[in-house]
C-alpha cells in the first residue's frame, strides 16, 4: 500500500477571493503530514480540491503518478483517497453499523463486510453503539465514526480535517493513537489541525499555508522555530507553547 499525494501549483478563486494561489505540497507515502495555517488560509479548500468536491482553476493533483485533477469524489475515493470533514458528516438516520456499510468495497461478501465494519468500530471504540442511529452520537463519537467508515475501503491516503477539533482530551489521545497505529501499517495521512500539540506530536512533516500559498514546509521542530511561520500563524497562538 503506497500513496503519495501531490498538489502542484493549485489555484482556486471564489469570485474575487483567491482561496488557493499556486499551492504545492506533498504528502509522502507512509508519512503523516500536517497542514496548518490561520483560518481562511485555504486548508479545507485544498482538501476539497484534492477529493473532487471543488473544481480548481489551475494546477494538478497526483496520486502516486496518476493524475486525479478534476476527478469526481466517488472516483477519488475509489482510487484510494478517503477524507473526513471539519464539521463531521455522517448519515444521521442510518444506524452506526449501516453507516459503516455505505462505503463501496468491491467483491466482499456481506458477512465479511459486517465483520470488518465491527472490527473497525471496535478499533475506534464505538462498537457498543453499532445498533444506535448515528444521529444520536456525540460530536466526538461522530468524529470516530467518520474515521472508521473512511477506513472501511482501506484507502492508501487518509485526509483528516480537524480530527481533534471540539473533541475532549481523552478522545484526542485515542484518535492520535489510532492514527499512529494506522500509519505504522503504511497508510499516508494528511491532517489539518489547529491543536499544535497534536500536530507537532504526531506529524513527520508539517506544511504551513497562508493566504492560499505554502509559506513553509519541514519537520515539526524546524517549523516550530521558523520566523515566517511564527509571523504568519504561531505568532499569537503559539506564544504559550
Amino acid at each position: 500500500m503506497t500513496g503519495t499525494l501531490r498538489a502542484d501549483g493549485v489555484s482556486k478563486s471564489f469570485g474575487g477571493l483567491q482561496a488557493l494561489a499556486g499551492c504545492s505540497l506533498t504528502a509522502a507515502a507512509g508519512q503523516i503530514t500536517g497542514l496548518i495555517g490561520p483560518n481562511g488560509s485555504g486548508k479545507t479548500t485544498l482538501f476539497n480540491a484534492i477529493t473532487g468536491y471543488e473544481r480548481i482553476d489551475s494546477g494538478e493533483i497526483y496520486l502516486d503518478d496518476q493524475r486525479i485533477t478534476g476527478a469526481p469524489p466517488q472516483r477519488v475515493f475509489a482510487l484510494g483517497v478517503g477524507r473526513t470533514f471539519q464539521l463531521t458528516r455522517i448519515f444521521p438516520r442510518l444506524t452506526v453499523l449501516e453507516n459503516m456499510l455505505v462505503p463501496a468495497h468491491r467483491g466482499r461478501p456481506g458477512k465479511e463486510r459486517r465483520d470488518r465494519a465491527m472490527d473497525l468500530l471496535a478499533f475506534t471504540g464505538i462498537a457498543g453503539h453499532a445498533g444506535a442511529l448515528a444521529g444520536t452520537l456525540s460530536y466526538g463519537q461522530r468524529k470516530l465514526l467518520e474515521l472508521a467508515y473512511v477506513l472501511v475501503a482501506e484507502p492508501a491516503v487518509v485526509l483528516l480535517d480537524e480530527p481533534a477539533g471540539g473533541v475532549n482530551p481523552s478522545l484526542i489521545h485515542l484518535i492520535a493513537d489510532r492514527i499512529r497505529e494506522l500509519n505504522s501499517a503504511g497508510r499516508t495521512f494528511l491532517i489539518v489541525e489547529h491543536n499544535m500539540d497534536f500536530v507537532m506530536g504526531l506529524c513527520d512533516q508539517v506544511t504551513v499555508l497562508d493566504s492560499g500559498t505554502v509559506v513553509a514546509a519541514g519537520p515539526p521542530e524546524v517549523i516550530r522555530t521558523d520566523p515566517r511561520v511564527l509571523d504568519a500563524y504561531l505568532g499569537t497562538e503559539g506564544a504559550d507553547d
Partner: protein
Amino acid sequence: MTSDRAAGDATASRPDGGGGQLAVDPATTAPAAPPLLTGTRASARLTSRRLAVSGVVVLVAAVAVFPLVFTNPTVTSIAIITLIFVAVAAAWNLFSGFSGYLSLGHAVFYGTGAYFLVVAAKDWNLTGTAVFWLLPVAGAVAALLAVPLGLVALRVRRHTFVVVTIAFFFIAQLSASNLTVTGGSSGLLAPVPNWASATYNNPFYYVGMLLAVVTVALSVLIRRSRFGLQLRAIRDDEDRAAGLGVRAMPVKLAALVLSAFITGMAGALWVYFIGQAVPQFVFDPLFDLAVVLMAFFGGLGTIAGPVLGALILEPTQQYLYLQQSNGYESEILFGALFLVVILFLPRGVLPTAIEYLTPARIGRLRAAWAAPRAGRQAVRRGGPPAPPAEGSVS
C-alpha cells in the same frame, strides 16, 4: 416468561443468528462505551418483528378474502382503487421516500402506463384477461420514459427537483390534451371485458392485489439491500455518500426507473378498470398530492407507512366523494388533512407511534397483557364496554 428472556438477553449475546447481526458481542465492545443495544431493546425488536410478520399474514389473508365477503360492486370498486394506490404509494416511497427526492410528477408515469394500455389494447385487438398482459409492457414504457426525465431532473436537488417534476407533469398533461394518439381532450375508451356482472370486479381486484403485494415485498427487499442502503445514504447526505464511493446518479436513476415501472403498471390497471382515458383524470395533479399525502401520513421512507396511508386515505377519499354530489368538499378535507399531517406529524403516523412506544412503554404494556386475566376482566366490567381489539395498541 417475558422477564426471563429479557434478563437472558441482557447478559449474553443471543445464540440465534437471525436478526442477531446487529447485536453486539460484548468482547468487541470497548470498555469506555457501554452497549446501547440493551437486552430489553433486542427482545422488544424480536417481539415487534414477530408482531409485524403475523400482522402481514393476517392483512394479506383479509385482503384475499375481502371480495368474497363484500360482494357489493361499489365496495369492491373502492377496494380496487385502494389496492392500486397501495402499489403506487409504495412505489413512490421506494424512490422518493428512500432517496429523499420528492417527486410530484409520478402522474407522468401513471398516465403513460394508462394511455399505453388503451392504445395498445385497441391496436392489437386485445380484450378480456389478455389485456392484463399489457401491464408489464405499460410499466416498461413508463420506465423507459423515466430514464431521460431522471437524467435531467436528478441533476438538481430538493425544491428545485420538486419544481422540475411538476414541470414534467404539466408537459405530459398538455401533450395528452393535444396529441392525436391520445385522442386529444376527449380522450380514449378502454376495452370493456364481457365478464359476468356479479364477479366483474374480481379480476381487477386480484391483479391489483398482486401488484400491491409484489411492490411492498420489493420495497422490503430493497430496503434490506445494499442498493437501499445507498439510497438512504443519499437521502441523508448525497455528497458525503459520493465521497465514500457511492455512484449517486446510477443509484437514484435505478430507483426512479423501478418506481416508474410499477407506477406505469398501476396506471394501466386503473385505466382498464375505469374504462376511459381523459387527460384531466389520467394526468391529475391531485394524484401526486394524494400519493405524497399517503406516504407522509403513514411515514415517509418506511415500509408500512405508505401502505397504511393508502389503506386509510384512499377509501376515505372515495367514500367522501361518493357521499357528496360535488368533489370539492372531499378535496378541501384532504387539503386540510395534508396541512395537519405536515404541521403536526411531519414524519408520519407510524414513526411517531413507534417513538411513543418506547421499550419501557412496551414493557409496561406486556406486563399489563401478562397480568392475571381475572384482574383485567374485572377492570373491563368496571368500566365502559371495552373494545374487543385490546391487543391493537401494540
